[in-house]
């Protein structure tokens, strides 16, 4: 009796939600419990996938409540971290370049949900959240951003050079497009060593016009390398809109002989489905291109206001209609996996976690001056560089 009423209430609430925000919510289906006790949910993606020379995967994605809740938590953590980095930059604790990822969290999380830590990811300079998704800690991120010793690159890399070898995160690169040939190289090693893993090489719509990308793609297709090129298309290459930089902004088609898939990059479950599909494809057949249709709320970097080449209405429009965290929140609430206030509590908890990490990172000292000369070469070469005023140790030849 109670169950029936509850079910009826759910149906009513679902239809209410659908009436009000039909274009936002995925079509809901009632769930059935799986054998393991975790109820299995099937959610439809916002839009169907579009394929180029390939049959796209199904629109229905399998997930479960704990996955959705952890997705929500992780995305809120990433969003909070980027906003905290923004204010740290404005108070001059972070200097130089700082490229923020807020708005694009769904790509990082969806990708991570589809693969293992043995698969490799390589990306460009908008790497803070991917580092986090790959298992990096908040303290290491903030310390690196502030140039402290506890940072993931010991303070010597900065915002654009986050790496985590143990979890297959290969950075973290400042030169646009240069990471794609590197990614194909990672895939080559994976094929050579018969590891059964894949590489995801992420790049942006600006980098999609780099020649080295097409060169690397040709070789990868020739050698059947398990590489997946993921174009995070946020529609702007710094200050230049995609239609002014690319004759064909259909980046998933630009591989020509390499198949491609276009994905709504603001829908984390769609990203997960596409990446899972791509991994299976790449292990069998070689490279595939994924285009993630996503958006960044901040400007290109902290020195770019982000409003000289696009309107504020556009930014707020995307935030209202397509925000990835809001989508997951609505999903969770409509499936009654948690109440709205519980989700707010998670966000508060996340905020506290970020603040504590910042405080801890601030306590870390700056690197020692001798660190200037470490890790130029791998130790054992017997050379020491010497100081500019020539009063320090002279070079020792091996």
């Amino acid at each position, binding site marked *: 009796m109670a169950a029936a009423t509850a079910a009826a209430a759910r149906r009513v609430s679902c239809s209410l939600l659908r009436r009000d925000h039909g274009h936002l919510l995925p079509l809901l289906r009632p769930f059935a419990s799986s054998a393991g006790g975790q109820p299995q949910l099937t959610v439809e993606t916002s839009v169907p996938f579009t394929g180029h020379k390939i049959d796209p995967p199904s629109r229905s994605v399998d997930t479960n409540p704990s996955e959705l809740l952890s997705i929500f938590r992780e995305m809120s953590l990433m969003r909070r971290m980027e906003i905290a980095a923004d204010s740290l930059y404005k108070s001059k604790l972070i*200097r*130089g370049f700082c490229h923020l990822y807020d708005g694009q969290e769904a790509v990082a999380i969806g990708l991570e949900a589809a693969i293992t830590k043995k698969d490799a990811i390589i990306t460009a300079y908008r790497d803070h959240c991917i580092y986090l998704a790959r298992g990096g800690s908040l303290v290491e991120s903030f310390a*690196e951003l502030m140039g402290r010793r506890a940072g993931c690159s010991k*303070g*010597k890399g900065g915002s654009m050079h986050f790496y985590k070898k143990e979890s297959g995160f290969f950075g973290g690169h*400042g*030169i646009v497009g240069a990471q794609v040939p590197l990614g194909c190289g990672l895939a080559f090693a994976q094929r050579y060593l018969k590891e059964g893993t894949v590489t995801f090489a992420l790049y942006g719509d600006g980098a999609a016009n780099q020649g080295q990308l097409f060169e690397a793609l040709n070789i990868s297709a020739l050698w059947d390398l398990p590489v997946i090129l993921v174009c995070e298309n946020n529609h702007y290459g710094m200050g*230049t809109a995609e239609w002014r930089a690319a004759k064909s902004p259909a980046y998933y088609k630009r591989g020509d002989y390499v198949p491609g898939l276009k994905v709504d990059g603001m829908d984390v479950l769609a990203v997960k489905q596409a990446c899972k599909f791509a991994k299976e494809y790449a292990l069998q057949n070689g490279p595939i291109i994924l285009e993630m249709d996503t958006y960044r709320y901040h400007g290109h970097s902290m020195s770019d206001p982000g409003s000289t080449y696009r309107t504020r209405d556009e930014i707020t429009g995307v935030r209202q209609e397509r925000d990835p965290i809001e989508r997951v929140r609505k999903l969770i609430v409509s499936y009654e996996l948690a109440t709205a206030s519980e989700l707010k509590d998670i966000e508060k908890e996340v905020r506290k976690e970020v603040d504590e990490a910042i405080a801890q990172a601030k306590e870390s000292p700056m690197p020692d001056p001798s660190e200037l000369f470490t890790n130029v070469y791998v130790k054992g070469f017997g050379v020491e560089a010497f100081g500019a005023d020539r009063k320090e140790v002279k070079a020792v030849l091996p």
Partner: protein
Amino acid sequence: MAAALQTAALLSASHNLIDPQRFRVGLLARSLPGRRGSIFVVRADGRTSGFFNAKSRSGNLITNAVATKADASTSSTASKPGHELLLFEALREGLEEEMDRDPHVCVMGEDVGHYGGSYKVTKGLAPKYGDLRVLDTPIAENSFTGMGIGAAMTGLRPVVEGMNMGFLLLAFNQISNNCGMLHYTSGGQFKIPIVIRGPGGVGRQLGAEHSQRLESYFQSIPGLQLVACSTPYNAKGLMKAAIRSENPVVLFEHVLLYNLKERIPDEEYVLCLEEAEMVRPGGHVTILTYSRMRYHVMQAVKTLVNKGYDPEVIDIRSLKPFDLYTIGNSVKKTHRVLIVEECMRTGGIGSSLRAAIIDNFWDYLDAPILCLSSQDVPTPYAGTLEEWTVVQPAQIVAAVEQLCE
């Protein structure tokens, strides 16, 4: 008050003129009112190719611009001739004047058009000249540099902007193989009047890939000319000279110098590409420097002067070819040389300069040539480590003391 200051400037200027030993480079002869027909190519020994008035008021020109705030004691701006602007505005002015003068001049680069340039050097040019003369390129340095060179072969005069000199490494093949060689391999048929410009050098914690000091990478390419600007005055002059030159010129700017303010003349002027600039005449030691290190040197000079030294500071400006005339005259006078540069120690500009001085002026040297350059490490992100990567004024003072003892 203003008149008194101006008279004082005049008096000191004429004193400068009288002493031939001290009067060197880069002073503008200002005699004619009105702009038409009054461009000057300013040469080291005061010769100009335009109109020249022996009683020129050289005191109005700031020959040793240091990166300090505008002097509060100087009179109101209205009474001083010329106009004040920042270095990136000076570059823009030079570019705009050349684009007005010659319809073959065009600009290509990432975000130079509608965005206005990542360092605002090309701001306002796209609305003025249109999409065909100020071209927004996709992020494809190798191709658009190559296209610039191809366009130059047929008579256009492109100005290719690398958003950061480090990105030009992607175009290195085009610059080395095509830009430098085509005039030679075609037996003189093709000229490549291209200007490749962009900021380089160590900035404020921009990370290793964006803080490259790679002037020396381009040094060995035959056929190229390299210049480095350091003040708004020479930025505008060198930009104009580079555009007018029939040879390919690489103009090195520095990320941290774009906001330098200086008063530059209203008249049109073009500087000589192969010339060095005498920043501070002196007698004890010759300090050769360029770009941002000029300011570190001048800061060290303040300390040195207090300690009783009299260094002669020359901003070499032309990195290829070296102005051995100016440098040689200085070496013959002081017999001691210190080179201060931001380039890498191994294979840097300083090392070639040192070799050139030894080859040519060995007999005039009383002490080994000291060369202070940046460390052979990728620029670290952490602020303290980054400071240690480049030469600091304290190290310059120590080096001069060591040289002169």
